């Protein structure tokens, strides 16, 4: 029933959150739902790591929080990217690109490709 969970690479959670928040302000619940949705249920962010991560990013000054009204008119905390956050996102995306293409090269050049598991 539940899709196989994929352990997130250390540090990628920050990247995912920043990327998710890039279009506009969003509350914590929506961030989790969005990541799950976009990744077709492959990536499920537990609350246990989501909220500490949001707080950490806020303390780092990459995102900002404001209280606002939710779709069903409840008080909710909305997070949005700051200028520093946008810069950080760009930098991390570049790093990610470099890293993933490098890994791709290694895997492609490694001879036999193991059969896909899923």
């Amino acid at each position: 029933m539940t899709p196989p969970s994929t352990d997130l690479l250390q540090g990628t959670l920050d990247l995912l959150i920043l990327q998710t928040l890039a279009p506009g302000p969003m509350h914590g619940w929506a961030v989790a739902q969005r990541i799950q949705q976009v990744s077709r249920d492959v990536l499920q962010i537990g609350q246990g790591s989501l909220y500490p991560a949001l707080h950490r990013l806020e303390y780092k000054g990459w995102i900002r929080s404001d209280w606002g009204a939710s779709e069903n008119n409840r008080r909710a905390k909305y997070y949005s990217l700051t200028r520093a956050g946008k810069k950080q996102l760009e930098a991390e995306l570049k790093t990610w690109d470099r890293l993933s293409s490098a890994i791709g090269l290694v895997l492609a050049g490694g001879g036999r490709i193991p059969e896909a598991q899923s």
Partner: protein
Amino acid sequence: MIAEFLSRLRFLFMRRKPADLRGDIDEELAFHIEQSVAQHVAAGVSPEEARRLAILEFGGVERMREQCHEQRPGWWLSTVAQDARYALRGFRRNPLFAFTVLATLTLGIGATTAVFSVVDRILFRPLPYAHGDRLVSVGLTAPIIPEEFMLGGSYYVWRDSQKPFEAFTSEIGVNPCDLTERNPARLSCAGVEASFLPALGIAPVLGRNFSLDEDRPGGPRAALISYGLWQSHYARDPAIVNRLIDLDGNQVRVIGVLPRDFEMPTLEAADILIPEALDEAAQRRADPGRVMYAFARLKPGITAQQAQVMLGPLLDYSLRLVPPAFRKEVHSRVRSIRDRQVHDLRLAAWILLGAVLAVLLIACANVASLLMARAAARRRELAVRSVLGASRGRLIRQILTETLLLALAGAVAGCILAALLLRVFIAIAPEGVPFLLKAHLDLRVVLFTVLISLACGALFGILPALERPSTSALAARSPGSLVHAWLRRTLVAGQIAMSMVLLTGAALLVRSFRNLEEQNMGMQTRGVVAAHIELPHYRYDTQQKQMDFFLQAESALRRLPGAESVSLSDSLPPGGRHGDQIFNIMAVAGRPRPEGTSAGTGGMVAWRWVTPQYFTALSIPIVRGRNFTEADRTGSDCLIILSSLLASRLFPSEDAVGHRIQLVPDGPWCGVAGVAANVRNAGLNGADEPEYYRLRRSAPADWNWYAALTVKTSLSPAAVEPWVRAQIGAIDPTLPVDIETLSQNVSTLAARPRFETALLSFFAFCGLLMAVIGLYGVISFIATQRTQEIGVRMALGASRADILRLIAGEGARLIAFGGLAGLAAAFALSHFLRSLLFNVDAHDPASFIAVPILLAVVALAATLIPARAATKVEPVAALRYE
């Protein structure tokens, strides 16, 4: 990067109240759960079931709250503050524990730091010379001068043909000299060879060293002044170089200023260095020549012992110049400058350091034992906190915070105590302990102390903390850690052993000191005031002038009210310098003079110049013959009085009175007027030397620059002192006079043993106190731990006496074990004290019996108090205990 940093700073300083923050987080999480519920409801689950599922999915709320908190910058800081607050609360709840630990640490650290500061210079600190470890003192030793010396007749030969040294230099001693310009002062001047400073590796801070030309007789007069003199007398004026000053009535050019930390290798105070300006050619021919002190720099890789062997041929050369009687007793000696400076002090310094380290060990053991007891008592608390979600790291951090807090407080208090103790040391310390006045707490010593206390705290703090808090500790009946109990018992036994060693040492020194104080000096010191006067050499340049002054002073003091007798002598017993000569050069009329090398020197004989009232002033009885009379003083006869010891050696079977003795070859023949009782004359603890007194007649030939005027008075010495000063001032107002009572003089001689005894006793007392506290702590802890067992035993019919025996027996075993080990160690170690002891055996039975009894009584008392408390337990209460 900067933006991030600023943001962190902002959060650190603009901190919202924790309650506020918590509210925010809670509201955010509540929203999340509601969204989750709504989703489940939308999927067709009933609202109750949806809420249950949502909460289940969410997981530990409290844990997440904590995690959100932990993201906050500066969170660490706040937990440290929290830990510290918690620790302080704990100390307030248990002030006795905190106070005991603090007091123990303070005492241990304070005493160690103070003593270390004192012995540092004596034992460890490098000398203020370049490569001071290669500098040695070189010379001959003979009974007549205690330290190695050289003679002009040998020195130049040694200097020019020695092999083991790369530099060889000399000085001729420190003498008083007078600065006679607008601001006159009595100073001390040291005569040194031109090569002296370069050989020691010292460069003047200002100006230059002596030139060879200045170090010749009749050369230009030059002087190097000390930094202190430059500061006090010339206000650090750089123009002092090349200025002419009046020294002993001569115009002398100042050619430089010595470094601030300069000291003579002999540690004599020297305000001015002048060239020794000896006539080398004359000295080479002279026999024996001028007394000098030689210092040398060893070539790399050569030890002092090797150098001494290599000097063998030169020693043979010097021995040829020595009178045959002397040869057997003259040797060569090469030793490091530090050895020369501290010689007999080194042992005392090591003993003090050892004693204080023992105190520190006892203190550390005490702290460890107390911390372990506290940890055992807190096992439940820790287990509860662990179950409530505190991580192990957090618990360890908490306990470490507590111990480090105590250790730091102990270090601060210890440093303050050390500063106070150091002042006390300097106040009660004897003169002549080198470096003591310069001892101070420096950064190095303080750092050493703080490190020790931190290590102590960290080690013993972390030991209990490392133990995993087990859930079994939650259960009321936990049997405590067996390892800890064993360790604590060992620590206490060790403390008792160390106290035993310290106490025995102290007891031996106290007994020795009492022997020293109560010994018969052979004279009365009460009511005797002595004025020491050294006449300025340049103004009193003839013996006639010297005699005139002293005779005038004598008759002036005779007129003082209450002056019973006034005498003039050139030295005073029991310490102080006095004349010394070889026994075997004395000749008795009518007997052959002892000749040849076989006789040896026969040892040394002390002698003094005295006037007739010397014996009445010091109450020395004349046992045979008669005292000198006033009439003798104007006569032309040389008269002497022998001490009983000398009389019995010279005339074992006949009466000495009436014999004539030639004191030195080619000297005058002197008649023996009488025999006086023996007086201690080699310090308080030296072996008495035979002695004779020579009458100081009113003839210029019998006088020199120095005399001690002794006044025996029926009034209080304090009242007489200003009168003496006034009378001498009336004759010569600029003359420095040094006045002391003879009791003070004797007491000064006892100052060093007193100092050593007081210090060691103090440490022994501290050690005993701490060991007893430790013992008390362990026994009362054991008693509390066994409360329940005691209840069971009593319920089963054990009497209170049985319980007392049970608990006190535990203490008695520790005392017996530690005490025996300590006694054995003390027996093995006490011979190190031997050279400090006077008329007490190092294995003195009285001390070795009294100390264990004292220790046993005190220690048993410390066990009986908690043991008795244990017997007061009501069985029913004990069974329900916890």
